[in-house]
């Protein structure tokens, strides 16, 4: 089964930490929707034999679209591709967009999973992150969403300068009490060319030390897990059964088709991504060309290393699956690494799989670079 990702490249404004591709020129929305429709049509011929069971609207801010606009996209996707009846349809939303009416519209358009950009339930933290909503709006929106659909996820950003573990636990507790089923908890990342990084470089804000961040990471992970969530990726936690089916496609090296500017695709050992410009995207698509920026085929070795890298960041490597896929035994080829990592508490080994512990997740990049 494959997934579809749709990138909605519009935001009403820029948050200081964000480096995803979007534009604040929302006047382009109609043009974009027409082009997106055309891109879907172009793909109808080029993507044969794929069956899809997830659709993910990311951005940007997909919640900027009206229910009807969204319905138009979903209908076109269903007409064009083989999409299962019970497909997971996720949508990323900003709390300030989610009026009760909007929630119902989205739901009737087919959205059955909302990923809400709450980030924090503490107002001063939201201000630091230059978010537009308040903690009370976020609380209401989460509650109202849960009234309409069961599968609600929230994003939390933590490790803000001088933030304490207790502060983060406030947000986690609130989410749990309200019945949120999924938490994506990201440590604040200082991406290149963001205002946040600029402030840090100018000394206006002080980054947490890796030691402090490690302590927060371990505490937050433990606290979320203790509330009944299961950690199934470095930054992702779900009440069992509520894992994001779509995101798991990325992490299990399963196929996905990306639509819209800057969207990434992986089908049949090929990875490609669309270019990062709404104007150019529309121009190319309108002349019936795919708006691709990079396109390459992975060799066996790259496939293997992607597989290992992604699996170690997620639920680990299943030995049977690995052998089936690559024709060799992971556990035999990596005996020394497995031994060392397990012995030092970075990983856990069971009969048929090998996965990182919370301590291991915290240094996953180092582990992958060093051992695999």
């Amino acid at each position: 089964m494959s997934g579809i990702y749709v990138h909605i490249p519009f935001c009403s404004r820029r948050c200081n930490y964000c480096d995803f591709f979007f534009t604040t020129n929302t006047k382009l929305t109609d043009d974009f929707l027409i082009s997106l429709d055309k891109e879907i049509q172009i793909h109808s011929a080029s993507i044969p034999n794929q069956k899809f069971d997830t659709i993910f609207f990311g951005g940007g801010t997909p919640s900027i679209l009206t229910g009807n606009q969204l319905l138009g996209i979903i209908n076109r996707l269903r007409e064009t591709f083989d999409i299962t009846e019970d497909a997971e349809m996720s949508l990323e939303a900003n709390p300030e967009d989610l009026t009760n009416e909007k929630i119902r519209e989205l739901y009737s358009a087919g959205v059955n999973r909302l990923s809400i950009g709450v980030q924090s339930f503490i107002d001063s933290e939201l201000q630091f992150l230059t978010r537009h909503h308040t903690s009370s709006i976020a609380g209401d929106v989460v509650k109202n969403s849960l009234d309409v659909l069961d599968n609600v996820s929230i994003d939390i950003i933590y490790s803000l300068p001088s933030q304490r573990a207790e502060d983060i636990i406030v947000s986690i507790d609130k989410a749990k009490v309200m019945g949120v089923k999924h938490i994506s908890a990201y440590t604040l990342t200082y991406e290149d060319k963001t205002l946040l990084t600029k402030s840090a470089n100018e000394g206006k804000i002080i980054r947490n030390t890796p030691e402090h961040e490690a302590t927060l990471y371990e505490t937050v992970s433990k606290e979320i897990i203790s509330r009944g969530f299961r950690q199934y990726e470095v930054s992702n936690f779900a009440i069992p059964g509520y894992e994001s089916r779509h995101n798991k496609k990325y992490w299990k090296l399963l196929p996905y088709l990306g639509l819209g500017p800057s969207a990434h695709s992986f089908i049949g050992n090929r990875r490609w991504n669309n270019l990062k410009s709404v104007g150019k995207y529309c121009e190319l698509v309108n002349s019936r060309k795919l708006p691709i920026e990079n396109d390459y085929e992975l060799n066996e070795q790259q496939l293997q290393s992607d597989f290992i890298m992604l699996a170690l960041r997620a639920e680990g490597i299943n030995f049977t699956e690995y052998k089936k896929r690559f024709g060799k035994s992971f556990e035999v080829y990596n005996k020394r690494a497995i031994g060392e990592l397990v012995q030092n508490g970075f990983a856990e080994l069971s009969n048929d799989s090998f996965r990182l512990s919370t301590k291991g997740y915290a240094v996953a990049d180092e582990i992958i670079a060093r051992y695999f």
Partner: protein
Amino acid sequence: MSKPNIRNFCIIAHIDHGKSTLADRLLEKTRTIEKRNMMKQVLDDMDLEQERGITIKLHAIQMKYTAPDKQEYIFNLIDTPGHVDFSYEVSRSLAACEGALLVVDATQGVEAQTISNLYLAIDNGLEIIPVINKIDLQNSMVDEVTDQIIELLGCKKEDIILASAKADIGTDLILEAIVNRIPAAKTETEKPLRALIFDSKFDIYRGVIVYVRVFEGSIKVGDTIKFFFTENAFTAEEVGVLRMGRIKKDILNAGDVGYLIAGIKDVNDTRVGDTIFKIHEPVSEPLPGYKEVKPMVFSGIYPSSTEDFENLRESLAKLKLNDAALSFEPETSVALGFGFRCGFLGMLHMEIVQERLEREYGLNIITTVPNVEYKVYKTNGEVVLVDNPSDMPEPPKIDYIEEPYITSNIITPTEFIGNLMKLANERRGVFISTNYVDAKRVDLHFEFPLSEIVYDFYDKLKSYSRGYASFDYSFKDFRESSLVKLDILLNAEPVDALSTIVHKDKAFEWGKKLCTKLKELIPKQMFEVAIQAAIGSKVVARETISAMRKNVTAKCYGGDISRKRKLLEKQKEGKKRMKQIGSVEIPQEAFHAVLSLN
């Protein structure tokens, strides 16, 4: 056959005092090269030389000079390397001349290196023509420099030529002085051949090209010749003189400077300072002054990745074709694997070899901390030479150790004497004497253990004297010293490539500094790393690198896996450049840690 009027000379100058510019000017004036064809400073033709502004390998060039009285002369300008590491080569180049232009920068004055080369020239009986260069610069101190030169040479003021090679001031006076003051080369062609080898270089088409000065007799194509010290015999295939390229001649006569090609495959057969004679006209005495060149500084050179070992061997072999002073033999290090122990004349020579390996041969290498060669007298009466700290016998087996000492001159403005005395003291210097060069400058004569000037001495000298002091040295003798081997252990595993030999009194402080430095240089690992410095089994210093606790990209979604993979590949590349000792990954810089200690 008319006897040509030959003048063989060289230029003695400190770096940047204008030797190359003056040489250019002479070539231009004698129409050896046309002005428009002239690359700046033609004598320095290796990239590295031009970048460093140092003439590393010497060349010779012939000029034809027509004096104002229409008399024609042949000038042979023999270039000399300009660095302390190459003082023997300098002395042999000087031996090929009858005279020298002593060029002193009017803004800088006499420097240590100028003085030591000047003494070499005087020892070789050369006529000295003092030239003050750059007199047209605003900050020139012609009077002071004149006094310095008079003090140094005991010459008259009017013997000194005031010049600016750049502005072409005084060039004609210099040309005339070469004719009138430098003795003509003797042309004793009737005697048996004796020619001095003052340089050689390897040419892939012709084999070794030997640069020679014929003192007596003559050499022509077809002669069977022999080298006095290496005792190898060859047949002369081609002889000639050097202008902008090689110009073939039938014969080289006494007095001539030129080249010889004789099917020689190895520069080791053509040792600088050796004497060439004809096999049928044996001579009883070689030309004086021959010394076997011995490496003074040793360092391990290892390929960063083990598969480059053969590449490294081939590259070193190629370098050696042109560099008889370089020595190398395979060695193994527990930490670094297979590599070579290389011997160099000095630190500059070492840096040049390292740089050429990386730049010209594209190799990624790790070099270990340089050290000198020790004479170890063992309790069983054996004497061993140790050029690698790992080869040092166990303490109980050592009776005593001797280390090489050098004799050195430091020339400095008097205001820095205190600072430099302090530096000398830190470096176990033995004070010998002070001589005033003039009222403001002094020549400090010290003897040092060579090992003390191998690391960063020159930089320290410059910083202690705000850049004014200059320094020159030559090997003196071996002396008994109280030395110990200091080992470095990472998580209890000794790292052989980080062992050093230090004076007993410095071992504790050295160990402490080294541990601190390594702590800075070794990145955090997934495990805690203990760094220890030890003498035998006694730990003298310790530092701990705490474990890395966070290194993970928080977000990996939206399907952009390529970016993540690129980051990881970069990290993996970085790790490839590290060496793994036990479970600890060490960056290459760590192997130079000692060099960057204060």
